[in-house]
């Protein structure tokens, strides 16, 4: 009996020290780890046009990739200090949970279930589902999709939901044709296999512009009013990284609202109003609470640009994507994007 209690107490001590250890590692913020390794590890994808894709030289291009760069600049002061780990849709959540990546920025829709597993920080893009059809077939309103074939990528619950709603509201059925990737589905539609193709709203215009033989033959409509808030996410329980990610994204929106761009940020830092000067490095204590350099916000804009610049570079009118900015406009222009106050 006595021997047993000895063993038991020893086991308890061991368990407690183990728990203490793991508790200790959990408390260490990823921000410190990122600084120690001098590199931010961010999610890549397997190639999503305009959002994240490796180019010929292995450099990641796209909106989601640039958001990662902004966070790398905030923490490390250098947009080059980020490594992208390619992930597919199934891997992206476990990759955050296990610490394989620091930041998830890869077309991930904020949902309740996902937010219970990882922690969503901010909504970076509002997307909706768009149906592309041929003008010649005169499908210009959802009702006319009755009995038509629609090409789509399998496995997207939100697209399915949007189509379900559409069918329920109009009391008809479509024939859904599934593909493993949205690119295959798209090419199949443009090759004439389907009457319609449903995809992310952001990609729709660009698809017509680049893939269609004659872009004028195609038209688009929104599939229902579903909205997909795509966001950046981190591991749960890391307040420090949460702060950095949330307020870095806020810098991007705030700068666009105040017309601060890569080109004029130096001027604004010198001659702007008091708040602008404080945020752009005039106040040595700004950023201290997050453990960042006082000029972190200035660096972010200088190296990556504001939200509008990131949009224009990757998704805007001058790119082949030509996305409809829609809900992603500033609130002053009828969108949903607004900066949080710095007070």
């Amino acid at each position, binding site marked *: 009996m006595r021997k047993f209690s000895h063993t038991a107490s020893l086991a308890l001590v061991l368990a407690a020290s183990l728990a203490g250890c793991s508790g200790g590692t959990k408390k260490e913020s990823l921000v410190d780890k990122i600084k120690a390794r001098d590199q931010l590890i961010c999610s890549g994808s397997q190639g999503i046009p305009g959002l994240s894709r490796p180019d*010929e030289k*292995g450099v990641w291009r796209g909106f989601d990739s640039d958001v990662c760069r902004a966070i790398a600049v905030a923490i490390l002061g250098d947009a080059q200090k980020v490594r992208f780990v390619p992930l597919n849709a199934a891997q992206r959540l476990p990759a955050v949970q296990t610490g394989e990546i620091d930041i998830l920025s890869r077309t991930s829709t904020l949902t309740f279930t996902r937010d219970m597993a990882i922690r969503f920080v901010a909504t970076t893009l509002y997307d909706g589902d768009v149906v592309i059809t041929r003008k010649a077939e005169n499908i210009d309103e959802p009702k006319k999709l009755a009995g038509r074939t629609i090409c789509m990528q399998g496995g997207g619950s939100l697209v399915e939901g949007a189509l379900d709603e559409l069918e329920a509201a109009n009391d008809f059925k479509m024939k859904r044709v599934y593909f493993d990737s949205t690119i295959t589905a798209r090419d199949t539609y443009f090759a004439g296999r389907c009457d319609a193709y449903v995809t992310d709203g952001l990609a729709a215009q660009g698809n017509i512009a680049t893939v269609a033989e004659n872009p004028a033959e195609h038209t688009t409509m929104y599939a229902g009013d579903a909205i997909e808030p795509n966001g950046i996410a981190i591991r749960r329980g890391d307040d420090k990284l949460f702060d950095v990610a949330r307020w870095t994204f806020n810098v991007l929106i705030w700068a666009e609202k105040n017309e601060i761009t890569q080109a004029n940020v130096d001027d604004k830092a010198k001659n702007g109003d008091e708040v602008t000067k404080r945020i752009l490095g005039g106040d040595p204590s700004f950023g201290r609470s997050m453990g960042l350099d006082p000029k972190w916000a200035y660096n972010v804009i200088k190296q990556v640009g504001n939200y509008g610049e990131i949009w224009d570079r990757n998704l805007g009118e001058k790119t082949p994507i030509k996305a409809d900015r829609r809900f992603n406009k500033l609130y002053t222009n009828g969108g949903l994007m607004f900066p949080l106050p710095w007070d």
Partner: protein
Amino acid sequence: MISTSSLSRKMNPLPFLARSFGSPINILITVVFAGILFFALPPLVRWAITDAAFFPAIPETCKSASGACWSFVIAKHSQILFGIYPDGERWRPLLVCALLIGMLIYSVRPSAWSKRLAWVWAGGLGLSWWLMGGGIGLANVESDLWGGLPVTLILTVVAIGLGFPTAILLALARRSKLPVIRLLATLFIEMTRALPLLSILFIASIMLPLMLPEEILPDKFFRALIALYLFASAYLSEVIRGGLQAIPKGQFEAGEAIGLSFAQLQAKIILPQAINVVIPALTNTIIVMIKNTSLVLVVGLFDLISSGKAALADPEWSSPSIETYLFITLIYFILCFGFSRFADRMEQRAKAPVK
């Protein structure tokens, strides 16, 4: 291929015309196939060559051409072949590909089959490792930046190269008289075979990280490599066991009678015969494994096919999927056909009379 064609030449010394029109059936076959070629070939040539877009390798070249868009493959060949490997360092994976293929060609010659071969392989794999990953004088390149052809080659060569010796041990263990060893080997083989490769890859890439602490967890590339290795060894071991079954009992008894140890008996008498018997089945399994490596795309590794797909995501180009996949098909064909030719040579050698 070489054997059948040379065989048919020996059996059928008739000239080409006589063979093509020698009998009514031959005439029919010749006419039907000539007809198919007559209708299929001109549009194919027009699409692939005459109307195709080559230079300059920019999107506009393809927009104005009605045929194949080879400009895309020309512009993106480096991305398809090397994935997201850093641009300035791409001579390293190129060298690794050359090294691995060179090692394979070196190993094909029977005169090279000696203990030295093991050292050549150990050295070659070590060198490849250093070239790909960096360290000592080269910039570090994390394995999740590896991509394209070297990934396909490394996965194939290592999974089969390590899987083959393991498979021999497993096959022997499964026939062992010791029940514990037999049971363990059987358990491993049956468990591995009962799971699809896809689910083993998913377990390795998604479940393992949730169960193991990150300090002892190998990275994604090596997890997939280990999964492929285990899978290959289970399948190869059953093929080899099939060869062992085919060896008459007298061979074992004769070997034991002249006082050979177990290892000598297996190495000098049983295995050489057993493996010769199963060369066609081995070739089959190995070619399947070469193609299986493309499944790593579901766990987010940039093998050849994933790299091709990522290249296709460039919005500047109108996504010439067919051309890209044909290019990748060509590479796979060269790999698989090359291997089957090698196996053919092995078979010829096995059939040759013992001197």
